[in-house]
């Protein structure tokens, strides 16, 4: 018995004339999931969402919602609702009329509309603002009206296109947790478009990282952050150091890797990576996964002997409150960033200009093919 997905895309292609906006995407989004589409501007996130909503028809491929092929169904016949980027509230209607719109179109009885509108407004904490016009609301309030207007219809899937994009940073953080709590409360599948990686990491159950119309990797925030499968994903999500060199020996998922100056370090081979000894390749290591000490010393960790070691010269230190950022130049002038919490004593003795040693665990250095 195959599982029924909330939304299933199979080899979906969308072309606008010469432009290929979506280049053969397959996705399976589970019931009740908070699923994010993450990627840089122009990568096809909005187009993907519009294909699900029915505003665009795929050039080829299929879109299913809860097992039902959507084909050429127009938006008003699909069991999904959208929260638009700039809210798209009807300016000539009050808040209550905006929220009631979908129910009216579906000919829900008047008294039920009234009750459900009140419920939806209570859900987004806007009770008492029923008779305001969209113009008389703040950005955050408009956002919540847009949310209520969609949720009141109890859609099977809610599509959100950068819903927090227009808000300032502080309000945005507050709305992130509010939105996440709301999703858990109503239990509706959310498909959430964003180009903010931190937002995607914080809110999502799973993330699809997109670039140039393709989905590069799908996984939980932890999988995406800890085990990026491509240079693009590693670079786009969080800060990453790239160190290039040559593959010396491969045994299982262990790779011995030679840096340009001859130093040998150990790294991990991601599942399914096609690399063989002698290939040029790149290591990716997160800045917080590296220890820095004065040259020749060991960091204060249990398995210090098992760490790979590389020496370099400390170029600069940035103090940013919770942590210090060390910029270290390796023998071939590759700059590596190290982030150390302001607890570690050993690293604090290092000064710009000093010779230092960098240490990392094999599991944290992941090999990416060039």
């Amino acid at each position, binding site marked *: 018995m195959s599982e029924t997905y909330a939304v299933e895309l199979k080899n979906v292609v969308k072309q606008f004339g010469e432009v290929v906006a979506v280049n053969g995407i397959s996705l399976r989004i589970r019931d009740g999931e908070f699923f994010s589409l993450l990627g840089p501007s122009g990568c096809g996130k909005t187009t993907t969402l519009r294909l699900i909503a029915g505003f665009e028809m795929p050039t080829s491929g299929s879109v299913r919602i809860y097992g039902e092929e959507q084909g050429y169904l127009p*938006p008003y016949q699909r069991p999904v609702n959208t929260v638009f980027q700039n809210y*798209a*509230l*009807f300016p*000539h209607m009050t808040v209550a009329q905006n929220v009631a*719109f*979908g129910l009216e*179109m579906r000919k829900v009885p008047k008294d039920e509309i009234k009750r459900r509108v009140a419920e939806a407004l209570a859900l987004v904490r806007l009770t008492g603002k029923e008779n305001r016009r969209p*113009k008389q609301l703040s950005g955050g309030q408009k956002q919540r009206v847009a949310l209520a207007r969609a949720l009141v219809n109890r859609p099977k899937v809610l599509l959100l296109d950068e819903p927090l994009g227009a808000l300032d940073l502080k309000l945005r953080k507050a709305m992130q947790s509010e939105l996440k709590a709301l999703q858990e409360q109503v239990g509706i599948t959310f498909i959430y478009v964003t180009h903010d990686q931190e937002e995607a990491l914080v809110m999502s159950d799973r993330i699809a990282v997109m670039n140039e119309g393709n989905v590069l990797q799908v996984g939980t925030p932890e999988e995406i952050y800890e085990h990026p499968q491509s240079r693009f994903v590693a670079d786009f999500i969080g800060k990453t150091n790239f160190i290039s060199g040559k593959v010396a020996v491969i045994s299982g998922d262990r790779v011995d890797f030679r840096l340009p100056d001859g130093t040998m370090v150990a790294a991990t081979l991601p599942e399914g990576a096609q690399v063989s000894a002698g290939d040029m390749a790149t290591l990716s290591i997160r800045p917080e996964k590296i220890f820095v000490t004065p040259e020749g010393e060991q960091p204060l960790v249990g398995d210090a002997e098992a760490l790979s070691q590389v020496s370099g010269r400390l170029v600069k230190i940035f103090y940013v409150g919770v942590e210090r950022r060390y910029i270290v130049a390796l023998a071939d002038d590759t700059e590596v960033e190290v982030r150390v919490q302001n607890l570690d004593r050993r690293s604090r003795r290092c000064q710009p200009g000093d010779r230092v040693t960098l240490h990392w665990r094999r599991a944290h250095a992941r090999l990416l093919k060039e």
Partner: protein
Amino acid sequence: MSEQALSRALSRRSQLARLKKQVSDLLFHAYGFWGYLFLYFPIIILVVFSFNDSRSTAQWAGFTTHWYADMLKDHQIILSLWNSLFVAIVSTTVSVIIGTLAALAMERYRFWGKLMMDAVLYLPIIIPDIAMAIMLLIFFDISGIGFEPWKVNFFGAHLAVPYSVIIGHVAFNISFVAVVVRARLAQMDQVLEEAAQDLYADPWRTFWRVTFPMLLPGILGGALLAFTLSMDDFVITFFTSGAGFNTLPVRVFGMIKKGVTPKINAVSTLMLLFSLMLVAISLILSRGGEKGDSSGNPMF
């Protein structure tokens, strides 16, 4: 020492700059004043002499309202006023419907020959009235429509209005309505229509619940413009009416041929008042539109 000299020099320079600005402001205001005077002086004269107690329109001889009473007793003038109103109301109604549909077609749909239609739609605005009038005249002649009158009882007035005049007015009004409505439509975010469809509204209900209400200030603005143009039109009416049919402007023209009297001033003043009223209404309407959303009426 030298510092003091410097600061004195600087303050003198800033005084000079201030003086320059005052002079230029004065000139600027004077220029504006003369400009307005030039524009409005003839109108003031017109209004003032409509109350002149003499047949002369050049010499003041005391205040009277008898030219207005005279005007109201003149059956020809009253009949032409009814004719004007009837033509304006009918042609505005027809051109608002067709013009709005044309604007929607141009803004929201792609179709074969759109570029062509775009050009044709604006033609009546750019070509001279006289060319349009002659075109229409020839058209009515060779098509056999002629100057057949529409006999109608309009609020008790028995009118005989040639269809050709109404068709002529519709022909130029469509363009003006389409331009105004289209400007409004272009400002309107299409995502609102998508939002309506997302909320289960089919295209028909999307139009009536979202597109139309948001378009309404534009449609009303277009209607007022069409109405005003229709009331004011002389050239096209004159050419398309055949013999014996007068709208108010055509009637006034006929009277002038027999000599200018303050009665003409009185009629003109009334028409002026009427136009001002329409402009005021359109301003109020566009304010109302602005309250609902940021985009006001683009034409006024």
